């Protein structure tokens, strides 16, 4: 299978995410059938595939929002599938951005961004506020720190959500269809922030339908279907010259 060719490539210590034989069932429904995947430091991996192919579930298994049925997931040397691992500690290092933003609606932008760092003692209140201000500048929302989520547009909410995740200073960022719930004119502003993150060397795993983003930013594109990795490769290879019939079929529908 085409997916195998990457298996032995990265066993060195720059490996940030190491997934072997991951399976996930919801009751009798097998969503992930046998996933093995490595992501190295600074790599941007985009997961493509039709809905129901298991991309989001794979992403959510990485920080254990879904518990794996079997298989192993090693993040930065910590086995998150081991029950004795302090999952909260590992999660501090993995930022996640959701399709529906999930900003804390009862808190201001500033409070959204400082809640976790202050509570988990990653930063003092003052440090956390400074970091938040810098991050808000970075995503172009420095004037919104006292606004409530309900006062922001979708694109603004998602940029705040990215900034909130970054406030924990994570090594890895997971994006679960970050632009799917946005009006078309707001997609660009969110993708721009993600591109900048990628350029700065963040390790990223992105589930998206934005083929353009994948072509431009991804180091590697993975095509999933039916709970398997069908094909993976550079954007060039996978998007412009796919080999597997199912990949060709999918791309012909979305391009």
């Amino acid at each position, binding site marked *: 299978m085409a997916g195998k060719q990457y298996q032995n490539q990265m066993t060195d210590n720059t490996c940030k995410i190491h997934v072997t034989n991951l399976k996930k069932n919801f009751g009798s429904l097998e969503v992930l059938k046998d996933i093995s995947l490595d992501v190295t430091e600074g790599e941007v991996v985009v997961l493509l595939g039709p809905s129901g192919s298991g991309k989001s579930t794979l992403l959510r298994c990485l*920080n254990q*929002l879904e518990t794996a049925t079997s298989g192993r997931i090693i993040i930065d040397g910590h086995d998150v599938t081991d029950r004795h691992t302090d999952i*909260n*500690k*590992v*999660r*501090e*290092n*993995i*930022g*996640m951005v*959701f399709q*529906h933003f*999930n*900003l*804390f*609606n*009862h808190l201001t932008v500033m409070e959204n961004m400082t*809640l*976790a760092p202050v*509570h*988990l003692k990653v930063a003092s209140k003052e440090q956390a506020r400074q970091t938040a201000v810098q991050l808000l500048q970075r995503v172009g929302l420095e004037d919104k720190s006292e606004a*409530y989520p*309900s006062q922001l547009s979708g694109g603004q909410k998602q940029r705040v*959500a990215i900034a*909130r*995740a970054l406030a*924990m200073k994570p090594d890895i960022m997971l994006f679960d269809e970050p632009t799917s719930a946005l009006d078309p004119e707001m997609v660009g502003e969110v993708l721009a922030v993600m591109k900048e993150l990628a350029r700065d060397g963040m390790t990223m795993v992105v589930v998206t339908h934005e083929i353009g983003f994948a072509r431009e930013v991804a180091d590697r594109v993975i095509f999933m279907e039916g709970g398997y990795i069908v094909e993976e490769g550079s954007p060039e290879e996978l998007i412009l010259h796919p080999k597997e019939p199912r990949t060709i079929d999918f791309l012909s529908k979305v391009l």
Partner: protein
Amino acid sequence: MISILETYGTMLFAALGKTLLMTLLSLIFAMVIGMIFGLMNVGHNRVFNFIGTFYVDAVRGVPLIVLAYFIYFGVPAGIQGIGFSNFRLEVLQAGTIALSMNCGAYMAEIIRAGIESVDRGQMEAGRSLGLPYGTCMALIVVPQAVRTMIPSIINQFIITLKDTSILSVIGFPELTNVGKTIAGNTFKSLETWAIIGVMYMVVIVTLSRAAKWVERRVNRGR
């Protein structure tokens, strides 16, 4: 009517005080009971779910009057039966326990429904930042749930206040019980029960107006 108020005024207001005291005590305990069993029903721990559901079903399945008899007469009889022959429960104690248990079961349901009305993504976002479950509940989910729960909680408070009248059956000297005494002594049923009714009404209307004001304040800036 004036003569009733002249003769029994102090007694009536003392009774109103007892009614309010029992209501207040019961509400405080009911909040605690409701929080405990409500949260048990929210998580996915099977043992907790079972306990929570069992409590709610058991208490809601029994009329308050039966629960009051059970606790005031039944429980002390049982405890005396196993050797503690001096065990007694005061009417206030028994009444407060019964009312707290009853109100607590309804509160548990209000709290469960309120928490479940908060989008699952709020908890997931908190957890993904590394915050523990309890912290996410306390700082993210519950504060948002409270806003949707307030009208139901106020409603339950009013029901509990009125339910104190049921405890006249075990002899607690609250408003309704005193009403019975006065009506019996004076033979002026119409006047007596009109006075009692108005007294309940004034308190409840005042309370619900105050609660509406609180509700508006909490929802400001939403």
